[in-house]
């Protein structure tokens, strides 16, 4: 480790130790592209910000081993540029929200883009992580190899934990070769038909890497070898979307540049992908082949409707309902959350209340 990084890490450890000793909460933060995301506990004093950007840099990248290890403050752009030199990428397409997130923020939020149902979610690509715990200790879990079942899968647990368990100072991710060819085809069809078609196609050996719907048009992305993409197009039909329009569409889903996200209230519904159109007055933006549905709606019963189809509803933007921003947990599962938080962070210094009120 270079001297600067070593010093930065020691500084972070010191800040955490002090916070723990004084029981003073910290707000872990990278570039702040997801400041809006998570609960915003109202009646607490604004916690001190722990800026993680200074702990930066790619630690290890071996294209033929299919992994990259980077410090939490490393900009996603830097990682994607390094991977692109070897025709590789992060296949879960982390959203950037049109900013420049850090890799630590990307993994702590655990959000994934349009390829999620076909290539896997952020958590599926986590191979290992280093945790700076509440005592200021550095703990390592997982590693850089694809298969590793020694000990509980703490590194995957940290993915999507919103920083409530500790500071993830380093992360190792699986990377994949970029598909040689990508093409998008479109079909004019109503939402119900689109969801049915997405599911039918997903049951066939087709190289699908994205399937979304908006305003009467379904778009499907095909990725792979030239021959596989050609064969799939022959089989599926549809009209080819030109490259720049296709790119704009998938980017609008991935990075939330789509007009729907400009609304004051936005709900994110994660549902089984076969779920027929929901009983809501507004038209959704559909991603993940039907499994992710975005609604700009003020309808009062979004959460109940999501539950009724065995899904969950997250109040993405706008004032959350009484139950909180995230879909409420099953009581027995909430107990496990509380106990885990108590054990990882007994003085409650890491992002208190960011995921669940009181944690």
């Amino acid at each position, binding site marked *: 480790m270079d001297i600067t990084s070593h010093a930065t890490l020691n500084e972070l450890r010191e800040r955490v130790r002090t916070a723990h000793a004084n029981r003073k909460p910290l707000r872990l933060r990278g570039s702040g592209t997801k400041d809006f995301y998570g609960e915003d506990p109202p009646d607490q004093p604004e916690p001190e910000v722990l800026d993680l950007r200074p702990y930066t840099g790619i630690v290890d990248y071996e294209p*033929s081993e299919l992994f990259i290890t980077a410090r939490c403050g490393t900009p996603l752009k830097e990682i994607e540029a390094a991977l692109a030199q070897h025709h590789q990428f992060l296949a879960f397409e982390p959203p950037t929200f049109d900013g420049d997130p850090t890799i630590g923020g990307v993994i702590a939020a655990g959000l994934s883009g349009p390829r999620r149902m076909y290539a896997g979610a952020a958590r599926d690509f986590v191979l290992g992580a280093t945790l700076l715990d509440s005592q200021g200790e550095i703990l390592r879990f997982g590693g850089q190899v694809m298969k590793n*079942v020694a*000990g509980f899968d703490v590194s995957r647990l940290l993915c999507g934990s919103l920083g409530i368990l500790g500071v993830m100072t380093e992360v190792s991710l699986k990377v994949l070769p970029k598909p040689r060819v990508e093409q998008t085809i479109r079909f004019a069809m109503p939402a119900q038909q689109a969801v049915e078609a997405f599911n039918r196609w*997903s*049951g066939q050996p087709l*190289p699908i890497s994205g399937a979304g719907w908006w305003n009467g048009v379904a778009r499907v992305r095909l990725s792979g070898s030239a021959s596989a993409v050609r064969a799939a197009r022959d089989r599926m039909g549809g009209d080819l979307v030109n490259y720049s329009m296709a790119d704009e569409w998938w980017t609008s889903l991935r990075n939330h540049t789509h007009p729907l996200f400009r609304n004051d209230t936005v709900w994110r519904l994660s549902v089984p992908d*076969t779920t027929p159109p929901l009983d809501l007055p507004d038209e959704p933006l559909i991603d993940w082949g039907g499994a992710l549905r975005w609604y700009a709606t003020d309808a009062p019963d979004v959460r109940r409707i999501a539950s009724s189809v065995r899904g969950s509803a997250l109040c993405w933007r706008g004032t959350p309902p009484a139950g909180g921003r995230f879909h409420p947990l099953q009581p027995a599962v909430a107990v496990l959350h509380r*106990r885990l938080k108590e054990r*990882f962070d007994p003085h409650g210094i890491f992002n208190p209340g960011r995921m669940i009120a009181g944690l």
Partner: protein
Amino acid sequence: MSQDDARPDEVATALRQILPADCVLAREEELRPYECDGLSVFRQRPMLVVLPRTEEEVRQILMTCRRMSVPVVARGAGTGLSGGSTPHAAGVLLSLARLNQILELDPVARIARLQPGVRNLKVSEAAAPHGLYYAPDPSSQIACSIGGNVAENSGGVHCLKYGLTVHNVLGVRGFTMEGELIELGGRAPDHSGLDLLALAIGSEGLLMVVTEVIVKLIPRPQLARVVMASFSDVCDAGNAVANIIAAGIIPAGLEMMDRKATAAVEPFVKAGYDLSAEAILLAESDGTPEEVAEQIAAIEDVVREAGATALVCSNSESERLRFWSGRKNAFPAAGRVSPDYYCMDGTIPRKNLGPMLKAIEDMEKRYSLRCMNVFHAGDGNLHPLILFDANTPGEWERADKFGAEILELCVRLGGTITGEHGVGIEKINSMCVQFSAAERALFFAVKSAFDPQGLLNPGKAIPTLARCAEYGKMHVHAGALPHADIPRF
């Protein structure tokens, strides 16, 4: 009657109040079949065996055992290779074998909802009429159960492309030791809160007892073909593996066997292996016929470039299966050429395959034991099979030390002590090498969040501080144990 003798009767009586008579086994001859799992060098007779038939019975058993502070060890098909379901002498062995129903198979949603005792292969067989299958395929898939796969986060030969159990299970349902019903994950892709599903998968029965598993089914590829390449040097074969990946190819399977392994399996299965080669590589491509043709040509180029001395590609499904048959039968073949064998499961970065093999060769001499090597080369997962005879005094002890040394080297080369078989009871000492005291303490903290009384599969997977201190004392290889302050991965 001493208190120790009274205890089993007392627990048996309590369990018979909630279960039919044939669901509680207590007689010595009934208990004997449960003494060990797939790792038969560790044997322990359980106090009692219970065989529930319903989810509610599982809950009742857990509540009763918790009330009486009796340890519970869950067991699926008992094919595990790390002693993860070795019974507890004063505990109840909870067999989930009778919960063996496929509760639902939805070809449109491409999911199956399973009880834990369903055999892995049965899932793919049931999905086959719909052109679907369940991807993880451990070698024991004919016998191993899905619940066991969840406990161990099992892999197989197609993990590089299709992932492990954790990538193919959408949700689990089951009980904590406190008898609380919990559902983690589910049919929808994303869920609120922490990813407890990831924590439960591979938790080796320490956190919860699973009673239902929802798995993802994927479309069966139209075609699969396998290239079989011979190498006169194991390092060349190792380089070929790295070069295939570097060329942007993710084969469906990428396996390697050394000469000792091919020599052992060939007379047994007649797979057509090149017995003059020091190592052979099997690289499979699947997809559409066009895609497979393209990928096979690319693999052949890379492999030839890496110095392959011979190259064959399967031209029919029966030929493909024949090429694989040797690899899939490596473990039984080891059992044929040696009275006993000890299978290791370390993982290392692929680039270190060559040096690792050379080191194992050196260890064979030092321990005076033979070792044949089969690898999931694509993901750097090694299965060295140490051959020994348990009836020859001292051989098992040497095999045990040989194995531990391989695992320590895996950690030093940037890998892990277990890629897919789990820690269980077998590799518990090696955990001391891979994890610091603070890391192990965190594992115990996670365990206590789910199981505050420590009744689920106690003594497995995570070593106590005292155990590691003792292991350190008796097992110091000069300078082999890494410093706590240098990165070990």
